[in-house]
């Protein structure tokens, strides 16, 4: 195992009755990176995060964090700040009390930074949690997660209920704080397009399995549309990994997800076709629909 590996899951399997939420799931994540965890509803994202943080237990397999078995490990868990999608804060507590409690439990918690974040996001520290709107509940989770400065910080759907301006502020804060205090983030989200620029690596889960793991730049390079006359498109994409095809009038559009070498590039140039990039969101839809993205 590389020294830089922070988190490793080995053959994780979790079943809920007849439903398999995670199927033999193995992945290793490095330190000091921002990972995007993408998947459709019910793909197994939250189950994976719950098992990593010992909120749930896997039926089989294990999780190693910081080189140790993570299951119910009191030495490991304080280094992980997990802000789940569900509300686990105590409704009668004030925002200031929640921040103070977080400061007590997370050794790296930066209260000054938390105060600055509250001011920037317009979060009133005197308010009780139960008086917060859906958006401000998300903001509080963001503030706690960022200010915790935990070596592994996990956000599950952090931008739920937030408007575009606040979402943008979150992405900027995340990048700024990550730059000044490098650590590992895992961000699970459905808003793929707008958050893709924040991620260094993207993990896509479908039906409890990891179907794609790539650097975002690499992902963008590998995914492209080929459009033109059907015969030209078919010739151009011959031998490539086509994850989606459709006809728009007389024009055929094929979505390709493939590593491209020089020979392939030359061939595409000689065919009478147009090449255009696939937005990450579209790529995600194609991959999770076709299930053909498996590690090209």
């Amino acid at each position, binding site marked *: 195992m590389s020294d830089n590996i922070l988190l490793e899951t080995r053959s994780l399997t979790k079943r809920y009755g007849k439903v398999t939420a995670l199927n033999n799931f193995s992945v290793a994540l490095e330190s000091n990176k921002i990972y995007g965890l993408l998947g459709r509803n019910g793909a197994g994202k939250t189950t994976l995060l719950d098992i990593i943080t010992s*909120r749930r237990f896997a039926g089989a397999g294990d999780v190693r964090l910081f080189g140790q078995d993570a299951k119910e490990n009191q030495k490991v*868990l304080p280094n992980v700040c997990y802000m789940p999608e569900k509300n*686990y804060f105590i409704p009668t507590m004030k925002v200031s009390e929640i921040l103070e409690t*977080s400061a007590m*439990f997370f050794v790296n918690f930066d209260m000054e930074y938390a105060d600055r974040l509250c001011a920037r996001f317009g979060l009133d520290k005197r308010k009780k949690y139960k008086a917060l709107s859906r958006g401000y509940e998300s903001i509080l989770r963001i503030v706690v997660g960022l200010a915790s400065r935990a070596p592994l910080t996990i956000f599950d759907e952090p931008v739920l209920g937030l408007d575009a301006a606040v979402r943008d502020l979150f992405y900027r804060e995340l990048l700024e704080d990550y730059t000044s205090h490098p650590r590992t983030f895992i961000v699970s989200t459905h808003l793929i397009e707008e958050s893709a620029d924040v991620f260094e690596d993207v993990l896509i889960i479908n039906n409890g399995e990891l179907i794609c793991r790539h650097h975002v730049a690499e992902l963008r390079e590998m995914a492209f549309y080929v459009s033109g006359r059907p015969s030209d498109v078919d010739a151009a994409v011959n031998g490539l990994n086509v994850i989606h095809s459709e006809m728009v009038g007389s024009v055929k559009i094929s979505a390709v997800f493939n590593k491209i070498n020089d020979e392939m590039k030359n061939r595409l140039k000689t065919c009478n076709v147009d090449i255009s990039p696939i937005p990450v969101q579209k790529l995600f839809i194609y991959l999770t629909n076709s299930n053909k993205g498996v590690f090209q």
Partner: protein
Amino acid sequence: MNRISKCLRFQLKNMLKSTLWFLIIYCLAAYGLSLLTYILSGGEQQTFRSGLSVGAAFYIFVYVISDYRTTFNYLMINGNTRTTIYISNIIANIILSVAMSILSYLSGFADAFFTKALSGIIPGQISILQFIYPGSVGVLELPYLAALFILITAFSKLYGVLNYKFGKYFVTIFWVGFGLAVISLPLSGSDSFLKIGTIIEKYLWLGHPNGVLLAQASFIITALVFGAAAYLISRRQPQTEPVS
């Protein structure tokens, strides 16, 4: 250990707030009502009884159940393991039990004081324990109540854990079962009453010269059984329920 003490500090802070509210409301209601009755009756002589020990028992039962769900979930997202949370929770519950037993014991003196001040009666019997165990020393009420309250916290904890795990199914089955048992008891004849009476008598060691101390042992042993069962169930409990 550091982690346990942090969890404990958090739980005690929460507990202090709730308990103070309970005590204020309870004392206002108990003494206020007695005072009102005294005034309305034109100052007739009467004995003041706050019954704090009974009120405290109900409070502990409800508090521990409701506290389990909120505290368990909240402490988990702060990086604590189930074992850490459980140990700190046991300590917090013991502290709550001892504090409530002291307050209940002291409330007996407050009752006597009010009775004497307002009615001029000098109450002879201030300890309910001396009524159940004649000849026992009054101060033994303190450890007796503490042990009883510890038993209630352990039972409530088990109830809370099962409630978390099975939700409304457990609550329905428990209370329907309890109701049926209460209803069917008179129908099953006087023998059942006698049998239950004998069991309670033996459990509480009534009539035994050291009954007060032995009953405390009964409470603690039962609490240990409930506590162990609650731990075994909760140590693999998933964090599934959001705080409502």
